[in-house]
């Protein structure tokens, strides 16, 4: 086992390969196999949760690129997600536009919105940036509710079934494979982005903006780019969300959702691709556990029967953000790295 970590790699091509050892390749292969057979044996509700987790993963990757890697906090991620969702919902329901136009259009529209927010926010940092992005979220929410003629306001919009080359993906089990493939693509793209020139510039800006600029990184260009890329991911995720939910409503895209995305990347690990995935899955399934907990508590204290509502989830997200910030700032991905090192070096511990 110890040899594995000391493998000699011949060229730099080898050194920058994504999946370096046969071990990693086999683990990933196994994982993909499990994912492939899951819909055949899994409960439909589980499949639905995985679908929602996939969407959350894509959106969380986007937020992590902006906040975790580039260091620009955003409390308005839900707004870009909403723009993507409404773009797909509107053009697919009104004009019967196919998915392969709807989804890129959602991404691009959200990215444009990202530019629109990113450029005036260039000089803002920390708390001020948080406030500005949050306000953008509120504005988008307001527009979605009041621009009735286009968004159908509080009545919500029904979204037609995604039609994959003549094959309608009309159930969660059918959407599942589509989502898994897109999510895998998003993960690979984000991983590659972060280990090449642009990603390095993002991290440099986060770590030392003045040094980055002196090395030739244009802060203006790269901060705006981070906003656009982040929003692009959110827009694509939003479009997929419209297809999975089949019906969208302004209430799906509140400030709480932005907080939820922030919780995902903090709990998962800021500045970590793997962390975005862990966090997205974790935060997506946590309400299920809370629901279970509520049922259990009802047995003990009958007084709280039917008291379970969204408030419990908000409290849980808040608590999780706090606990992770205090005890594990590197998030679940930090814990994962520790476990992995432990195994790699086993039986030698140091």
């Amino acid at each position: 086992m110890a040899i594995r970590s000391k493998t000699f790699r011949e060229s730099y091509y080898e050194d920058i390969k994504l999946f370096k050892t046969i071990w990693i390749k086999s683990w990933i292969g196994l994982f993909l196999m499990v994912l492939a057979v899951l819909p055949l044996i899994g409960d439909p509700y589980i499949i639905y949760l995985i679908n929602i987790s996939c969407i959350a993963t894509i959106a969380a990757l986007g937020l992590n690129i902006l906040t975790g890697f580039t260091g620009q906090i955003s409390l308005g991620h839900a707004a870009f997600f909403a723009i993507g969702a409404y773009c797909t919902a509107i053009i697919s329901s009104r004009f019967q536009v196919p998915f392969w136009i709807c989804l890129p259009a959602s991404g691009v529209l959200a990215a444009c919105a990202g530019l629109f927010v990113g450029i005036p926010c260039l000089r803002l940092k920390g708390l001020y940036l948080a406030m500005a992005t949050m306000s953008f979220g509120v504005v988008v929410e307001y527009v979605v509710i009041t621009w009735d003629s286009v968004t159908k306001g509080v009545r919500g919009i029904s979204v037609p079934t995604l039609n994959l080359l003549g094959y309608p993906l009309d159930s969660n089990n059918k959407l599942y494979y589509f989502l898994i493939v897109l999510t895998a693509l998003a993960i690979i793209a984000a991983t590659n982005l972060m280990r090449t020139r642009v990603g390095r510039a993002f991290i440099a800006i986060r770590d030392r903006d003045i040094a980055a600029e002196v090395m030739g990184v244009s802060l203006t260009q790269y901060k705006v780019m981070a906003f656009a890329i982040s929003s692009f991911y959110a827009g694509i995720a939003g479009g997929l969300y419209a297809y999975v939910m089949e019906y969208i409503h302004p209430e799906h895209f509140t400030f709480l959702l932005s907080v939820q995305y922030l919780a995902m990347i903090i709990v998962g690990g800021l500045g970590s691709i793997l962390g975005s995935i862990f966090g997205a899955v974790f935060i997506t399934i946590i309400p299920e556990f809370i629901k279970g907990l509520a049922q259990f508590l009802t047995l003990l204290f009958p007084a709280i029967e039917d008291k379970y509502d969204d408030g419990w989830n908000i409290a849980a997200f808040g608590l999780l953000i706090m606990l992770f910030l205090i005890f594990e700032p590197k998030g679940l991905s930090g814990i994962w790295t520790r476990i992995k090192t432990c195994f790699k070096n086993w039986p030698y511990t140091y």
Partner: protein
Amino acid sequence: MDLLEIRHLSLNFGGIVALKNVHMTVKKGQIHAIIGPNGAGKTSLFNCLSGVYIPTEGEILVEGKNITGLKPHKIARLGIARTFQNIELFANMNVIDNLLLGRHIHMNSGPFSGSFFYGKALREEVGNRLKVEEIIDFLEIEKVRKQLVGSLPYGIQKRVELGRALTMDPKILLLDEPAAGMNVEETEDIARFVLDINEELGMTIILVEHDMGVVMDIVDEITVLDFGSKIANGNPREIQANPKVIEAYLGQDE
């Protein structure tokens, strides 16, 4: 033509005068030192040269081209690289990535080719990695190349920061106290590297340094600043004999 020419340079912060009407020229291929007591304005001068501060008055010319007021990232592309007095490395990146960031201006893959890592982006990564490895060999930091720089000892971090500036392949290299906080042996290493960079890599070097032993040994020309003004300029022998310089230093230390 001089490689670098500074004319009438002044810099004020509110009431504080950091630089006052500074003139100086640096010849191509030289090692030029800027010395002076604490607070003399040496770092401020570097900040003006690299675009971090915009001078209140005056001009900076590189090969005759006026660079005054340009943004730092533009100046970087014109061939000026620097290190910082207090190390400013990207602490969460490893040594290779820090040095690769120095190659930023020599690369051009954008977000799209980066995301899909195809052809051009990949070739570019590997090609620049070769350059980075050359510098790593040159500075003898092979052993730590995959470590996060935040976890390295101070002396090595200083060396990595030097490496990051070198990978930019600049015409002019600004070094702000490269030997500060180092022991005798580390200081000798740095002095040797500075000479090698000048001779083997052919870079013109401007050096701020308090260690007079190093300065007098390796540099061709010295400019002395005191309270933001230039008080002397000359070769090491002339400077050592200059009464104004002796006074400035005595008034400061003892």
